[in-house]
């Protein structure tokens, strides 16, 4: 896994771009994400069904992982079972 990789959810429509990552397993809807969609969709885990939002960045507590949602879906993101949280842009007052 390296920055710039596009990962797809096995459990929903979510797609993310990897901005930063470590060696753990990136999951969506409770199932590992991959560069290709599996033939059989994985079941959506009730614990990871909060949904993803287009254009939001998701990070872990240590700042080791950062994912950009480029396609929203019903699952929510996690790494090794630990949920990621959104990181907000700090919008400029339209400087350019």
């Amino acid at each position, binding site marked *: 896994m390296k*920055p*710039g990789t596009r990962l797809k959810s096995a459990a929903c429509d979510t797609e993310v*771009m990897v*901005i930063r990552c470590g060696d753990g397993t990136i999951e969506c809807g409770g199932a590992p994400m991959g560069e290709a969609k599996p033939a059989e969709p994985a079941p959506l885990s009730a614990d990871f069904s909060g949904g993803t939002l*287009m*254009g*939001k*960045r998701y990070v872990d507590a240590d700042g080791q992982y950062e994912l*950009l949602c*480029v*396609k929203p879906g019903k699952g929510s993101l996690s790494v090794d079972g630990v949920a990621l949280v959104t990181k*907000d*842009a*700090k*919008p*400029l*007052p*339209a*400087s*350019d």
Partner: protein
Amino acid sequence: MNIALLLEMAADAAPDRIGLVCDGKRWTYTELLSAARGAFELIEQSGAQYVALLDESSEAAVIALFGAALAGVPYCPLNYRLADADLAALLERIAPALVVGDEERVARIAGNQGHTVLSREEFAAKAQEVVPDSEDRVYDPGEGVAVQLFTSGTTAAPKAAILRHSNLLGYILGTVEFAAADEADAALVVVPPYHIAGISALMSSIYANRRIVMLPAFSPEAWLKLVESEGVTNAFVVPTMLARIIAEMDKGLTADVSSLRAVAYGGGKMPLEVIQRALALFPDAGFTNAYGLTETSSTIALLGPEDHRAALASDDPKVRARLTSLGQALPTVEIQIRDEDGNVLPAGEAGEIFVRGDQVSGEYKEKSALIEGGWFPTRDAGYIDEDGYIFLSGRADDVIVRGGENISPGEIEDVLLTHPAIADACACAVPSVEWGEGIGLALVTRQGQPVPAEDDLKELIRGRLRSSRLPDKIKFVPELPYNEMGKLLRREVKKILAE
């Protein structure tokens, strides 16, 4: 990750929304993305190693920027105002390129360099015709250089500053909320395409899904007319543009500017009287001073609307002075002031401005200017007050070294501009047998005001600054030389003073 993602996401989320208006033509995000993908085909076919733009702003700037990104070759907009010989030298450095714009000129000055040249209309038309099947295409992953900009080369040959996809995305993702704009929002872009602010404006607006309204050639009339007809909500201007808009409005030119919510300015020093007048003429708009450099992918510090209002309303001279500051560092970058030995200076002490962060490239094609820890020495001189407001005193290279003492031109100019008869002022080094460098002043008097006596001016400076700031030479001139971005050309002033 490729900057083309910004346009792809906009086309995904708002396919039919108008993303760009130029010369009356309207483009949806889907049409822009499709044209960028068409441009990819044209670039591949040409075998070009760069995509150059030699033209005013138009849809071609957006299509070429993202087309080049998809193809993995740097986008290199060129300053069409350069003299033939200088432009030919730059074209040679990026050969073979796909050059979009002035065909006749490229043929005349660089006809033997192996470029493929298309006019703006041809390029846009062909890019729309060649619609590839994107499933078959493998686009560049965006691990390299997205944009190459030649610096203005005021001191030496122009340097090729390079901005990687990662720098530009670091800036946009860190400062723009995706799809945050309402469908009615519009940003008026009037900065030339070869300026970093012109490039970041395109990317910011597209990621925010905010309609870009392009004004290829600035005039106060055209600017005000577009604000009214397009209901423009956001605009970026350089100080000279704002000064001209205000001058026309004061002469009676009117337009409905009530849609304007945010006006940002940057690219040169904003005269206090211009910003004060602007705040009065546009009472509903929030003003933002944006400070940044090519090498930092645009803005690194901001003086926001609240800061402007607070400074205007305050009786505290320290707070009022912030109207002339650059504001505070963005939360996504770190800024430090260092002395010549590299020591970090405390608040209030003047030195060179250093910056680091994801958006900071600090890299030239020839070599990186980054130092240990990823810090970029901006060569801008200034200080930071105890509340984090950054004050710019000029380019580090402009510092006058008089008898071993470093004097920044800005402090002398600021004092001179408080004189009622002085409209504009420039201090720069003049040769001095006694001190090595002395202080030369080029001054412009206000219309209808008598030329002040030299002794009065010296008295004014002595009263506010140390005696080492007294000028060795004073010259009154009809006007000071500025470039089209409103940057004072100190090198030219030095020549005038040497005459």
